[in-house]
């Protein structure tokens, strides 16, 4: 009963360097339509950069990106990003706008919806994340968990085909993590295509369909969660899991 315009996403042999710093060294990542891929690994392994390359916030030096099997590297990157929602560690809500305006801004300016219709759709999205009653509040007056749920609503409002989560719960107080993870779990179960960079091993293990372990700008190991967490093949993954679990 998928309600999403989900699509598959593939990164092929992605390379990126900042000067002499080779951040991504040939990454392959495939997310089947309607599934959730989580990406785990130590800090500095290139996970967050990978997300930014896959929606072309940063252009890759080499490699290809396919959305629904078609290369998008020649598309207008702004149009590509309208099809891929992104949620950040630091929420990045627009502090000078109300919660509803945060969600409706792209609807009005990019989808060109009239103001009332954009607001109505924004309220609907806020309803989904349980924050309709905060529509006219400023982001600063919300808790971290609420802010992150608004950020998710803001991304969902554009009806993206894929959602990226960049350590979406890392900046939250422990008691607020659960709510955001529950929302992400619902999205995954409802058939959204998702790439989730996370330190939440519980989420990675229980919710995602595939797990990719990155270290030093390469994919060290990837597979279904059962295999990754119970039968890690490489020493690096074994070491990482024993550190975080």
């Amino acid at each position, binding site marked *: 009963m998928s309600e999403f315009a989900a699509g598959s996403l593939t990164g092929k042999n992605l390379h990126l360097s900042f000067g002499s710093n080779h951040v991504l060294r040939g990454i392959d990542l495939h997310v089947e339509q309607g599934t959730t891929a989580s990406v785990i690994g130590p800090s500095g392994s290139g996970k967050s950069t990978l997300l930014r390359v896959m929606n072309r916030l940063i252009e890759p030096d080499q490699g290809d990106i396919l959305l629904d099997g078609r290369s998008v590297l020649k598309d207008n990157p702004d149009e590509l*990003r309208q099809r891929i929602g992104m949620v950040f560690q*630091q929420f990045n809500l627009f*502090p000078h706008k109300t919660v509803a305006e945060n969600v409706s801004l792209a609807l009005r300016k990019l989808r060109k919806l009239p103001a009332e219709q954009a607001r109505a759709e924004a309220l609907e999205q806020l*309803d989904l994340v*349980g924050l309709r009653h905060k529509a006219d509040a400023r982001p600063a007056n919300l808790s971290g968990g609420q802010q992150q749920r608004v950020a998710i609503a803001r991304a969902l409002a554009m009806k993206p085909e894929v959602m990226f989560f960049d350590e979406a719960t890392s900046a939250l107080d422990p008691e607020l993590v659960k709510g955001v993870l529950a929302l992400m779990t*619902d999205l995954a179960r409802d058939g959204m295509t998702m790439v989730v960079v996370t330190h939440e091993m519980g989420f990675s293990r229980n919710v995602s369909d595939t797990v990719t372990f990155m270290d030093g700008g390469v994919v060290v190991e990837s597979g279904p969660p059962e295999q990754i967490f119970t039968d890690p093949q490489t020493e690096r993954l074994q070491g990482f899991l024993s550190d975080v679990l």
Partner: protein
Amino acid sequence: MDALDQLVKTFFDWEAMAAVLPKMITVGLPNTLILAVSAGVLGCILGMVLAVMGTSRLTPLRWLSRIYTDIFRGVPAIVIILLIGLGLGPVVRVTTGSTNPFPLAIFALTLMAAAYIGEIFRSGIQSVEKGQLEASRALGFSYGSSMRLVVIPQGIRRVLPALVNQFIALIKDSSLIYLLGLIASQREIFRIGNDAAANTGNLSPLVAAAFMYLLLTVPLTHLVNYIDNRLRTGRPEKRQPDDAAALIGKGAQQ
């Protein structure tokens, strides 16, 4: 006691002040405001152009903005006003037949104000967290739209106090245009006070001019403090408990 009387008479001769006050209010005040407000508005427009250039990803634009700012911020106001006013005056007279020094005075004040205002805007824009631009671009907005809708509005808000300070400076600097030669109806607050002081040999009209300036600038100073305060407390620390764990996902499952 004689010395004190002398001082009071020199600075606070109420009659001399009262004599000059009507003209100061009906002629001087409007002229000062015309100069300061026009240069302020134009300076904001040019300043914003400079700030956007100064934060651009294109190196030549950043350099242009830098050079402009260094020049017009580094040269004394009096030099710019004389160079522009006296230098371009004849050109304007020949091409338009106008001898009114106001347009050139406003132009000179604008050029200088823009240099400062550009720096104010630039610092505001650059103080906005990188994540704001990133989030906006991730939604699908172009660089230009992201700057216009998300980054610049936040940047301006943060520098409103500095902007008002700049306007105060402009009100005071507008007094320098007396150097360009003003006919009676063009005189601003300072020139009217100065003329009256010269005619009467008493400084009280100049003190009256000082009061007029204070009347304009002191409320603005308090406006700065008010804005500053509101910007700081406009984001209440009060946080409500996360009421949501239970609510979450309720809708998403339907």
